[in-house]
């Protein structure tokens, strides 16, 4: 049994079937990336894995347990955490409070403080803005905060939805370096990213989603060489 296993997942939004029987697996310690066009169902898949959307059929198994019917908070406590698309930070709360909320499921104060220090090492910008309300941060800074907040929970499986969105080129490279580092520290990563080239460069394996279906799966290196993938997602 894999670390995370998804079998034949079907999720509908009203009349639209956004996931049409998706199956995939993530092994412990891997970085797995999902690539695909806008509307292919990547975000829907992450939202279903987090329990925000309910699948019509199919099963999600995490470390041997069937988590399909679980509520979001229970899934988070089990260790599946995501940094959502579109930087859903708590705009009226300070940077510090946002990070504290990231550690909501934890009680170990000293370790939380240590992890916050770690987040500041990754994103020094956040430390400068510690007491500012998150709504006054620039778009890129909000993105850093969303990622830092997800890390504060000490996830076992970290799902990142477009982590490089809105970040400057220098910082995009930095983010991918950070994801690799987090992974080396033992966190399994499921990465959704439009920047497919860089995502494939750091991932172990990848899946290509198209209109709610997995149309290809392979090692990241093989996908990066694949003629179809290069043409469709890597800009030739």
């Amino acid at each position, binding site marked *: 049994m894999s670390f995370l296993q998804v079998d034949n997942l079907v999720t509908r939004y009203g009349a639209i079937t956004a996931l049409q029987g998706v199956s995939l697996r993530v092994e412990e310690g891997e970085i797995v990336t999902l*690539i695909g066009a806008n*509307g292919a169902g990547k975000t829907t898949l992450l939202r279903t894995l987090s329990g925000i959307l309910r699948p019509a059929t199919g099963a999600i198994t995490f470390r041997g347990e069937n988590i399909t019917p679980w509520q979001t908070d229970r899934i988070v406590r089990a260790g599946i955490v995501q940094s959502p698309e579109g930087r859903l930070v708590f705009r009226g709360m300070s940077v510090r409070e946002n990070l504290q909320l990231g550690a909501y499921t934890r009680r170990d104060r000293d370790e939380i403080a240590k992890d916050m220090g770690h987040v500041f090492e990754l994103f020094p910008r956040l430390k400068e803005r510690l007491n500012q309300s998150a709504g006054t941060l620039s*778009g890129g800074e909000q993105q850093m905060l969303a990622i830092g907040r997800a890390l504060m929970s000490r996830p076992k499986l970290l799902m990142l939805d477009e982590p490089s969105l*809105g970040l400057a*080129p220098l910082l995009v490279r930095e983010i991918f370096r950070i994801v690799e580092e987090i992974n080396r520290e033992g966190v399994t990563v499921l990465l959704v990213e439009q920047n497919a080239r860089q995502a494939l460069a750091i991932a172990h394996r990848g899946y290509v989603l198209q209109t709610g279906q997995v149309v290809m799966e392979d090692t990241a290196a093989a996908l990066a060489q694949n003629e179809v993938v290069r043409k469709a997602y890597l800009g030739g």
Partner: protein
Amino acid sequence: MSRRQGSGIRDPGSGVGDQEPGVRDRGNPGALLRLESCTRAFGGLVAMKDVDLEVHPGELVGLIGPNGAGKTTVFNVITGIYEPTAGKVLFDGKDISGRKPHQVARAGISRTFQNIRLFRALSVMDNVRIALHLRHRHSFPAALFRTPGVANEDRAQTEEAHRLLEALDLGHLSGEAAGSLPYGEQRRLEIARALATHPQLLLLDEPAAGMNDQETDRLMEIIREIRRVFGVTILLIEHDMGLVMGICERIYVLDYGEVIAAGLPEEIRADPKVIEAYLGVENDEL
């Protein structure tokens, strides 16, 4: 540096902002938009410092810089969401600094937002039609009784909305709820809605965010196309260097609220300050 950008761009000390009020468009008579030593502070934090910037009619200009450099603040000062603490914003030769956002919009500047702002529950078509409605106003009784004039104009508006949606590759989605569209398509819908007010100047805040390379390539074609068809001048903020270098004729680089470089794409790409602050030393993507 480009010849076209006029004077004073990298020289905040030239005192352009000190001129007397009422002097119209002194420097370059051709500028559609002109920021003169614009500064905006929030308490002690100076988000934008002595920014000089010009956009000429028909131009496509890029504004880039690290996260938190103040790019969106520049847009907010131009569109009247913030009043500049010092300096002036001239549009079409008129001083518009301190005007309210709706007045700026009516003067001919339209924008999209980094955090998408659509009427999520309304259809794609209705999002555009609302913007069109803002332009054409009927008297209340005329609208109430649906006079022939109103009905004709409604038809004309629906046609125009279709035309805008087609231009942005959204024609096939006109009946969908805006909130149900994927991110990239919501961004295009924002552009369609911004165009519906027939702006002279269109400000795009990270239009390619959330798009893959292929979609970004298509967006570049769309932006070129709307400039040609709608004759609109464009100033855009973007981190996708493929897009910025690919379509912008001139580029301004902002860092810590100040313009650190301005010029043609090839000049910007080679500028050591820009490489250090923004692009990174080994840039394999350019």
